[in-house]
């Protein structure tokens, strides 16, 4: 089979990834001041309302968008047109000023943000009191704790994978896989920040899934490299890498393709609340595949060259 020279572009791909990550994080923090706020991470307001039959989700979405209120709209019961509205803490000021615009006659004195939001909603949608089924100020489901646990988790996982792979194969492959995994996570986080996707439980699930997928992908490629490199210490690693990646290319394409079929089905299917999850996952699969070929393999090669130079 004709071999493709994958490692030829290694410096280009490595710098491209590096710049993309830096760019994503710079935009995230300089332009937006960090990741998007979300109910799952920061807490906020949550109301459940029964809307008149002629109102739809897009009405609600349109309303919140026009008023610049960050809201997640979830349809709880189709027949009765019951919606759950989650409002991020970032929109409290907007709600405050909108509340003040309600004519005096329709306004009751209120003490809490959630109260003001409910009044705003009732005024806007002409809702009687009993159609507001619940209204709570809710705390974060996940949050500070998770970030901490997440980082510990990632570092420990990487350390153990490094150890396992060093024993099973060679340190250079273990090191390269670990760096590539970090690359995948950082890339995806940069994307989440750049697009201001709201972090949520499904997004965490997506991150974890792509981590699993990515580990799998890297090991398959490296196993082939290791097998081909067996007993050929003198051969340039870049050649072996190219041969191996070419040999596993069919498998890589098939696996990425089948995984993407399921993910795309969710995106096309139109489950609104799963869109972010599927989108992040789709990106993750692409990045995971890309990094196995263009990040992990070149890093192992560079490491190999450096080591050979040192001992030469």
């Amino acid at each position, binding site marked *: 089979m004709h071999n493709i020279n994958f490692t030829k572009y290694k410096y280009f791909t490595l710098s491209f990834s590096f710049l993309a990550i830096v760019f994503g994080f710079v935009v995230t923090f300089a332009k937006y001041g960090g990741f998007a706020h979300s109910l799952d991470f920061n807490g906020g307001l949550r109301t459940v309302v029964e809307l008149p039959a002629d109102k739809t989700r897009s009405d609600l979405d349109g309303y919140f968008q026009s008023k610049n209120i960050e809201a997640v709209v979830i349809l709880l019961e189709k027949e009765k047109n019951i919606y759950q509205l989650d409002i991020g803490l970032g929109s409290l000021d907007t709600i405050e000023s909108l509340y003040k615009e309600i004519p005096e006659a329709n306004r009751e004195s209120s003490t809490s943000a959630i109260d003001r939001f409910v009044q705003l909603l009732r005024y806007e949608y002409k809702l009687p009191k009993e159609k507001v089924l619940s209204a709570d100020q809710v*705390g974060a489901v*996940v949050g500070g704790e998770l970030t901490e646990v997440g980082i510990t988790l990632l570092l420990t*996982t990487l350390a153990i994978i490094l150890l396992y792979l060093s024993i099973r194969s060679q340190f250079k492959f273990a090191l390269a896989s670990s760096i590539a995994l970090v690359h995948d996570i950082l890339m995806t986080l940069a994307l989440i920040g750049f697009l201001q996707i709201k972090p949520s439980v499904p997004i965490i699930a997506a991150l974890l899934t792509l981590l*699993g997928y990515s580990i799998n992908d890297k090991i398959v490629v490296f196993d082939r490299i290791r097998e081909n490199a067996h007993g050929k210490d003198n051969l340039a690693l870049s050649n072996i890498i190219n041969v191996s990646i070419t040999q596993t290319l069919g498998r890589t394409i098939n696996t990425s393709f*089948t995984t993407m*079929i*399921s993910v795309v089905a969710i995106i096309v299917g139109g489950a609104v609340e799963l869109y972010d999850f599927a989108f992040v996952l789709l990106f993750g699969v692409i990045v995971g595949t890309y990094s196995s070929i263009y990040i992990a393999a070149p890093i192992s090669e560079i490491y190999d060259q450096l080591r050979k130079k040192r001992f030469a």
Partner: protein
Amino acid sequence: MQSYRLLILPFLILAVSFTILYPNFADRTLKIVVREDVYALPEADQKTLVNALFERWAKDYGKGSGWTIEPQGILPPKENPYYTVKGRFITSAKINQISQENQSFVSESKNKLEPTWIEETIRGGKSLSIKLGLDLQGGMRVVLKGDFDDYTSKLKDLYAKELNELKLTLNNPASKVEDKEKAKSRLAEIESSFDLSPMRKIVELEKAKMIIDNRLTTQNLTEPQVRIQKEQDAIEVSLPGVSNSAAILEILQNTETVEYRLEEPTPFVFKGQIADSERRMMDLGKRENTDIYLFQELVKNKAGKKAQDEFLENLEKKYNIPPDFKIYAMWARGNSAKSNLLPRSFVVLERKIALSGNDMTNAQPSYNSNSYGWMVSFTLTPNGAEKFFDLTSENRGRNLAIVWGDKVISNPVINDPIAGGRAEISGSFSEQEAIRLANVISEGALPIPLSVLEMRFIGPTLGIESIEVGLKAVAIGFFLVMAYMIFYYRLGGFIADLSLLVNIIILAALLTLMDFTLTLPGIAGIILTAGMAVDANVIIYERIREEIEEGRALSIAVTRGFENAFWTIMDANVTTLIAGILMIRLGNGPIKGFAITLCWGIVTTLFTSLFLSRLFMELAVNRIGIHHLNLRPFFFGKKETTHA
């Protein structure tokens, strides 16, 4: 592999899996129990309640749901006070919802989903259906904070006497230096035990969690989850489907304890004082001014524990009760067995707890035909038995009161030392009270009082629409992947699909067996499992094809293909497994749910791809006699098969 007798294994495993999964699809019977007090209501009120239930029923659980309810639209007979609901897919959220919406009609805690014969046989009646997490179905979440101040004050009671003695020794100029040193170190030791380290707090919270777990299981609530929030010294309880349940909260927070305390020594100086002044009031014809009457009024008006405590504290001040003693009310029933349990007189007990509930276990309520009342017998722990024997031999002739919660329920005289580690409490109990008391003793009391830090209704992360659309999308995705595999690998793809299906079925059965609660991240874990399972087969087929291309005979190519792929698949899965196990150990909530499905998914994937697929493939090639194995896609495939 070659031994086709092994084929029996997948069939066996599938049969077992389907058996385990059966309750999820089976026609179920749910019993909705009508509250006892409904039958005492006037007929018109009963009718209103029945109508309310059935109107709601017609709206939501009617024809579309496929559920039927018997008897329809009338009150069930008093001797069988329940409605029988039959249907498929009766979820816990719906069960709880039905009872929540009809609280004055339905006895929530007694509703019961009848176990299927399978659950009866393998689980002794315990449910085998897949549970859905709060993020999928919504529900109530309560965070209960441990009140450690109260805990230390109780501890201080326990050591009250010893502390006093030690202080006396220390302050007494006559005591020996040696004794003083000893007393000093013991004092430091006791006082350090009042200082709660984070570690100690966790231990107490763990105990509380266990007790809450027990209480919830006896409440017959569907799928409650209890976990500790270390950062907040709190316990989080998740109750799917339940949106507001005061009764459950009360059960959770109940800190009732059972303990023995010695009464003041005879002649009862303090008790006598109180009784004298009460009698004087009575003689003056001012019954409503007596303390016991006032106290009864507090109880009848449901003034709460705090008001009662304050009342007793004031009483202690009034009668100058020394700090070593404490006033309690002795509770009893009036003359008839049906009259209420009320405080009837005051007793003065030692502040020191003589024997605590921790020293007792295994309580059983039983009917005492001699006194026509219920009593509770229990076993003492070895340590407790020793304490009890010492206590009863040293204090013959004194009264030993049994305090339940803050009520003295019995105050017998110690006649003889009691050995043997068994004892009983006879009081004027009703059956319910005897059962409750026995539960408090057997399950233990909450070690720490819990206060509600946060109680909220959790909406599902996904709406009904998204779940429906999402499931459809996943199903379509699955179908497309399977179709693609057949298109690309032909017979190989078919075998891969077969083992993928078996994989998912076994995984579902395993998760059911482990009482796993399915959450959204859990579903993500299953999707990843499916992806990795397909990948494993792809790796194998690519290897087989390489072998064929190198001109090997088909059966050898198949064997070598599997062998070559073995370590790659192992390595990939073992590393992911390591990551998964770490996630289970370190993570919680969403991370854990994901990791558990992932880890078990890896186990099933290794089995199906390395064992099952191979078995099927070898069977096809060596037994059924497939001579051409084309692992190239239809239309694009070059002819490259080798003859076996």
